[in-house]
């Protein structure tokens, strides 16, 4: 399964890539929204899931969620740094399938991913 990760923090992104690869996923990662969105638009038919940060350089996570859900219906999990209720509600209103608050355990993320991928 092909997963796209868009996250500008090197540490988290590298760690996630390593983790997901170790779980057998094929992972494509980007550290900015612009490249990420470009890749998504080119390869959407092959992709199973998108994990994106909210605050991203060039193109923000909100726009990515919006485009993914309105065009291709690919499941999206948002990584957010704040546990402000308003932000969480906004993410869900945008159409994100799930979100997870940093810092998080990769196992939780994996569970949430699997739930979305089974459907």
């Amino acid at each position, binding site marked *: 399964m092909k997963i796209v990760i868009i996250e500008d923090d*090197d*540490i*988290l992104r590298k760690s*996630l890539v390593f*983790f997901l690869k170790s779980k057998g996923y094929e992972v494509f990662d980007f550290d900015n929204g612009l490249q990420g969105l470009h890749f998504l638009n080119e390869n959407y038919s092959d992709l199973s899931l998108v994990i994106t940060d909210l605050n991203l350089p060039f193109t923000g996570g909100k726009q990515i969620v919006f485009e993914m859900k309105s065009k291709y219906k690919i499941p999206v999990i948002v990584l957010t740094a704040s546990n402000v209720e308003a932000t969480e509600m906004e993410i869900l209103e945008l159409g994100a399938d799930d979100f997870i*608050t940093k810092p998080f355990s990769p*196992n939780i993320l994996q569970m949430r991913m699997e739930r979305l991928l089974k459907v």
Partner: protein
Amino acid sequence: MDIKQNEIERLKALLSYNIIDTLKEEEFDKLAQLASIICETPIALISLIDDKRQWYKAKVGIEANEIPKELTFCQFTIQKDHLWVVEDVTKNDLLKDNPNVTAEDGIRFYAGLPLQSVDGYNIGTLCVADIKPKQISEKEKIALQIITEQIMILLEARKRNLQLITELREIIDHKEIESKKIIEKTSGEFKTFYESISNNNGIIEIDINGVITSTNEVIGRLLRAPANKLIGLDFYTLFALDRSHNSIEELIEKKNFLLEYQSSIAQKKWIQANFVKITDYNDTIIKIILICQDVTSRVRWQQELEKSKRISEFLNQQKDRFIANVSHEIRTPINAILGFTDVLFELEKDSLKLEYLNSIKVAGIGLLHIINDILDISKIEAGMIKIDEAPFQLEECISNAFTVLKLKAKEKGIKFLYSIDSDVYTNLIGDKHRLNQILINLLGNSIKFTANGKVELKVSLLDVVDQVCHVEFRISDTGIGISQEKLQSMFDRFSQAEVSTTRKFGGTGLGLSITKELVEIQNGKIRVESKENEGTTFVFVIPFKINQTNEKIVYVKGEVELLDLSPKKILLCEDNELNQKLILSIFKSTPYTILIANNGQEGLDLLAKNTFDLVFMDLQMPIMDGFETTKNIRENLKLQMPIIALTANALIYEKEICLKLGMNDFLTKPFTKKELFEVLNRTFTGNTIPTLPEPKEESISLTSLKEFIGEDKEQLNEIINSFQEQLEKFLSSIEGLFLEKKFQEIRLYAHKMKTSFGMFSISTEELVKIESTDDEDFVSNGITIFKPLLDQIEDILVKLKNVAL
């Protein structure tokens, strides 16, 4: 002769009454009327007689105002001093031929009394006359006498009044002349004054409404306009001044005001105007005089000056930033040079090459010192050095400095010692790092310039005021000393006693300047005493707060002990093996026994067979999650032991669900030993002992990272390296961002860093502080606002080196 002289005196007396040719006066008229009524005569006269005529002051029965003296009856009366009665004038020789007698219906009866002045002169008469002969009774004679007296009283009163008026007028006239003189003098002075001002200053006069009423030539030249054309214009319009902000009253109040004048053709002019109000005796403003001076060149010059000041300040800032950046950049390669030199030292056996290597090392260390000095000075200049206020031990700090320099002193064969007076407080609050730096600078300096003998530090207590003690540090050497004239500039930048000194001893000449700045930012003072060829003594005094607690400072990393040490059995429902190991290791040294269930179902099975004092419940587990398991424990097994949720999310709703399901407390992963013990203490004893404030020691945990990476060392190291790079990048760019006032970028940067910090379980408190600082606070706090964060990052970098695998 006698008669003539008498007549002159009489005329003088008459004139003194100043009565002839005056207007009718009612008082006299009434007396004449009275005489006519009493004597029953058609004619009654009050007359005054001068040398030529008889003039009637009051008259009854006569048309004329006067008659020539020679035709009068009264000319004879005034020669008498009593009443003269002529019952039939036709029988009187003196009067019978008079035209008034001979005329038709001529006078037949005459009675007259002289009007005698106070000094005895007959100045006129009261007379009655009839055209029929007549007799006069005694009563009538007395009445005429009384009337005469009355007339004289009137005349005398009148005369006195006149005299008074004259006197008064004289006085008034005199005063008037005097006042006039004063006014002339004052106005003369004012005029001279005004003219001399007017010669050199522009003058504009305005009324209270701001309308220009008068100008002079100078202002005309100044404003490049014919002076008279300005009259009638509105002052506010002329100088494009806002009336609502600068009312006439405010301008007068200000006295001095800078006006701007933009004429249509010429360049802008700046005019300094003095507002002088001119008031009348009621203090009402009549007009305002503006004394104006052309200050255009001064203002221009000032503007130029300010502009160049701004530019130079900017350039200076640029310079500081450049120096700070470059110094940082230079340090990195020098470290590499020194590091590899050390490596080569180990490998090299050839003595010549070893000597060369030594030269490289010495030069490298020297370069590093210079760079450090420059970096320090630019940091001081940029106000980036903030003084720490932390408890420290004085002797520890001093011995630290001695450890650093001991070897150097030993190499030169110099005695190197210190002594601390017994009354000096040991536990102080202050900045031990800065104190250490000062000591190393000064002691190092002394060692450098001392060939033989000793370098000594004496520490003594000067005084204690309000729990602040002034500690004196006296560093003396037996070195080359400094000449008196050089002592003055000892602490100046780039100054060394002699140019030759630089060649012999090296150094940037910044060390003492930095030392002085460091002492002074700690509110201290430093001075130097020296004798050439005998030695130098540096004395500095720094105020330190006394550490009241007086406890020995022990670095406790927020340790918490378990309060209830009775043996307990605990069930851990947790699928993650790492977390299982972590908890097991924490409880290894406690009397608590841990049993592990890999999922909820396993947990329920264990609970059915055993009794537990407490359950740790992970919420996300395969087969049966924490929520389901808890529900089962409470509803089916009906067990009441405390259940503590382990949650990976700090989501409020999750916590609420936990409590609703009957869980007692929760721990958010990743948690520390401290947090774990605190929960247990809360649960078992219902209270917690207050933990010591956590010192700013950074704890780094790879636990969460390992959840992602597992135990892959290569991968872990790569991640740690990226984190180091990320931190170093932050360190090197934050100052630039701050100086460019890119506060929003800084906030975003801090926000972004939180993710990585979280991966290493590092407190994001400082990042959050920066993230939530507004522009105003950045500006008012200056760059020092970053100190806690930068310190934390430096600390993390040190710790990361230790955790690197």
